[in-house]
C-alpha cells in the first residue's frame, strides 16, 4: 500500500528540501511518490507541514488526520501541533529543539509537555539534530541529520539505498556546505544505528507491502 510520512517544522528549516530529497531517492528506486508542499505565506517563519507518500502506486496527494505512519519533525512545538496526523502505533523522529514563535507575549509549553503529546500516539526517537548541525558548521543543516536518520530506515526497509541518499546530501550547498551536509547526513545515519531502527524498518516495510 502506501507509506504516509508527515514532515513538519518551522518555515526556513529546510522542510521542503528534506521532503523532496526523500521523494527523489524513492523515485530513483522505482517507487511512485507524491510530495505535497506548503508554499506562499507559510514559508515566512510559519508552521509548515509537507505530506510525503511512497508506494507502488500513489494517487492522492495528501494524508488524512490520524493516517500518518511516520513523522519527521524538525521542531518540538510543530511535532506536537501535527501529532493528530499520526495513527496509533506509528513512529516519530523528532529534533529535540523548540523554537519560540515570534509573537509578542507568547508562552511556550514545557518541552516535556510537548513530548508527551507526541508520545501519546507514536513511538518517538529524539535526536539533537540542530546541535549537531551547529557543531559541524551549518546552522540550518538539521534537515540533513534527519535525512541521514531516515535514510538508514529506508535502507533497512528496502525503499532506497543509503549510499545514493548520501550522495544527494553531499550535492546540496555547493563547495562550502556540501561536505558539511554529507557529514551531517552521516551523523544522522550514525544516530539511527546507535538507536537501532529495526522496529521502524519492519513497520515501514509492512505498510508498503500490505
Amino acid at each position, binding site marked *: *500500500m502506501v507509506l504516509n510520512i508527515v514532515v513538519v517544522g518551522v*518555515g526556513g528549516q529546510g522542510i521542503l528540501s528534506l521532503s*523532496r530529497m526523500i*521523494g527523489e531517492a524513492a*523515485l530513483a528506486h522505482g517507487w*511512485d*511518490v*507524491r*510530495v*505535497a*508542499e*506548503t*508554499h*506562499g*505565506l*507559510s*514559508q*515566512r*517563519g*510559519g*508552521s509548515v507541514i509537507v505530506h510525503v507518500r511512497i508506494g507502488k502506486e*500513489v*494517487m*492522492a*496527494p*495528501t*494524508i*488524512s*488526520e*490520524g*493516517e500518518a505512519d511516520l513523522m519527521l519533525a524538525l521542531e518540538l*512545538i*510543530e511535532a*506536537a*501541533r501535527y*501529532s*493528530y*496526523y*499520526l*495513527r*496509533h502505533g*506509528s513512529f516519530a523522529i523528532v529534533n529535540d529543539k523548540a523554537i*519560540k*514563535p*515570534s*509573537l*509578542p*507575549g*507568547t*508562552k511556550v*509549553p514545557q518541552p516535556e*509537555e*510537548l513530548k*508527551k*503529546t*507526541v508520545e*501519546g*500516539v507514536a513511538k518517538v526517537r529524539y535526536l539533537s539534530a540542530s546541535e549537531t548541525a*551547529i557543531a559541524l558548521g551549518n546552522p*540550518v543543516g538539521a534537515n540533513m541529520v534527519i535525512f541521514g536518520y531516515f535514510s538508514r530506515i529506508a535502507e533497512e526497509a528496502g525503499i532506497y539505498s543509503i549510499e545514493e541518499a548520501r550522495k544527494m546530501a553531499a550535492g546540496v550547498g555547493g563547495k562550502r556546505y556540501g561536505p558539511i551536509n554529507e557529514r551531517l547526513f552521516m551523523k544522522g545515519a550514525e544516530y539511527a544505528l546507535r538507536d537501532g531502527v529495526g522496529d521502524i524498518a519492519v513497520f515501514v516495510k509492512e505498510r508498503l507491502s500490505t
Partner: protein
Amino acid sequence: MRFRGDLNKLEGKTVLMLGNEAVAWGALEGGIGVATAYPGTPSSEIVESLVDAARELGFWSEWAVNEKVAFEIAYSAAISGINALVAMKHVGMNVAADPLMSSAYTGVRGSLVIVTADDPSMWSSQNEQDNRYYGLHAYIPVFEPHSPSEAKELTKYLFDLSRRIGHPVILRMTTRISHTRGPVKLGKINVMEPKGKFIKEDRFVLIPANARRNRLEMLRRWEKIKEEIEHIPFNKVEGEGDALIVAPGIAYAYVKEVVRELGLEGRVRVLKLSSVVPVPRGLLLRALDGVKRVLVVEELEDIVEKEVKAVVAEESLGVEVKGKEIVGYPYELTLARVRKSIQAFLGHVPAEEVSKGGTVTGLPVRPPVLCPGCPYRPLFTEVRRLINQERLSVVAAGDIGCYSLGYNKPYRLQDIIIEMGGSIGTGIGLANFTDDVVISIIGDSTFFHAGLPPLANAVYMKSPLVVIVLDNMVTAMTGHQPSPSTKGVPGRRYIPIEEAAKGLGVRFVKVIDPFDMKEVRKTVLEAIKFARENSEPAVIVARRRCALEVVRDLRRAGVKVPPYIVLEDKCIACRLCYDFFACPAIFAKDDGKAYIDPELCVGCGACAQVCPTKAIVPAEKYDKDKVESFWR
C-alpha cells in the same frame, strides 16, 4: 525550479516535478511561443520555470503588471498565430475577466492556453472561488488534471486542441496539483519563435455588428469542442456495477485510492473526467448505462453534479444522483472525506473511526511573520507608535503582499484587506465617508498591478487620503519576481513610483527610507496634515530592498555583516525591541532583558534605534557604507 541548462538532454527522463513545473514542461512539448503571467500563489512556478528556458530556447516568457495585461499579451499573440500560455491564480482571473469573455467571441489563430490555479481551502487566498464557472460563463472549455503527470500531458494536448479549433481553453489547476510533486516523464521539446502575423479580420473588432456574428461562430465552435471531448484519452470509464462514481479532476486521485483500499475495484463504476466543462454527454450516457445510483465526488462547487442531474432528467433515466449533500461544498477533498462519502453512498458501515493522535491545547500559534531585516518593520513600528501617541483615529486600508502580515500584533496596521489594489479604492470611500484618518498601505508591485486607477480617482475626487507605498522594488511574497519597480532588469525600464504619482497629479509626494524612524514619523504626520487641510491625497514612497534579496546578495559578494548584540548592563528590560518592534531574531530572556539570536539576525541594525538606552550594537565593527549600498 527554473528549467536551466541543456533541457533537450532531459528527454525520456522521469523527474519528480511540481504540478506547476509539469505544466511548464507540457508547454515546452506543446510548442510554446509566448508565456506570461502575474505571479500569485499557487500559480507562480509555471512561468517562473520558463523564464530561463525562454532565453535559451528562443521563445518569450515574462511577467506582466497584472493578469489582465498578461492575458491581453498572450491573447494578441494567439490572435497573431503564436502558441501562447497565460497563468494566474484563481482571483487573478477576476482581473482578467474582461478580455477573457471576449476571447471566446473572437477565437484565436494560434493556441491560447489559460491556466488558472485555484486554491481550495484558501491556503494563501481571500476566497476559494471555483473558476470552472468561468468556463461555463465564457464558453471556454475547462480541463482538470488529477496528477502532475497528467497536468503535463493535458497542457501539451491543449496547445493542439486550441489551435485546431481556434478557441481559447482553460487548464484548471488546484493547490494540491500545483504544489504536489509527482513523477513526470519528460518528452521532446518543441517550442516556437515568438514571431506572429496579424491578419486583419472583422471578428477581431468587437463592435456590436461583428460581435453578433461572432456569437454564432462561438456557438458553432462550442459544438466542435463537445464532439472533441467525447473521444479524448483523459476521460474514461472504469469498473462495473450499478453504482457509478463520477470523479472530475483531482477527485479521481482520491476516489481511485479509496476504491482500491475498500476492495471495491471492479465492483463499482468510476467515470474519470478531465474535461469538466462541458461534460462529455455521450461518455456520461455510456457510463450511466445500467446504473441505478450515482455519486458525484467533486471539489468545491457542484458543477459536474448539476450537469449529471440535467442529463439524467432530460433522458428520463430515473437514476438517483447524489453529490454535495454527501460530500459537502467547502474546502479541499481529503482521503478521509472521500472514503466517508463513498461509504455513506454505498450504505457501508464505516470502519471504526481511527482514533486520532494527541491534540494539545494551549499550543502557541505560529503565523508567518515579517522576516528579520524586513524594511516594513521599522515603518510599521513607528506608524503604530505615532497613532498611539497622537491618539489618532486611523483606519489602515491594507492590501495583498508580505505587508498583509502587518495585520498581526503588535502592528495592527491592516484593518481591511479585500483584493489587489483595494487599499486605495476602499481608502477613498473610507476617507470621504467616515471621520477617520485613512492610511492606505500598498506594495510596489501591487501599486503597478491595480493601484494606478484608484490613485487617479483619489486625485480627481480630492480624497483626503494618505497612501504609503511600501517599495521593496520587487514582488517579494511570491518569490521575488521583477516588476516595473525593480531596478536593473536587463532590457527593461525602471519606473520610479514617485514619478508615477506625480504624473497622476498628486501634489504631496515624498520618498523616505523606512529604516529611518524619525523621518517616517515626521513625513507621515506631514502627509496627514496635508491631506486633511487640502482635501487631497498624499503619497509616501518608503523605499528599501527586500531583506531576503539583500542577504543573498551580501553572501554572494562575500561581504560579512556582523549580527547585532544586546549589552547586558545597558538593557533595562523595557520590552520595546521584542514586543513592540517584534523582530523574530530578538527574544526575551527569563529576566526580561533582550537577547538577539546570532543565527537569525541579518545585521540590518534597525532595532538599534528602537532601544532607549542604546544597548543594541553591532557585535563588531564593519563597513556600514558598503553594506548600506546593498540595501538601496
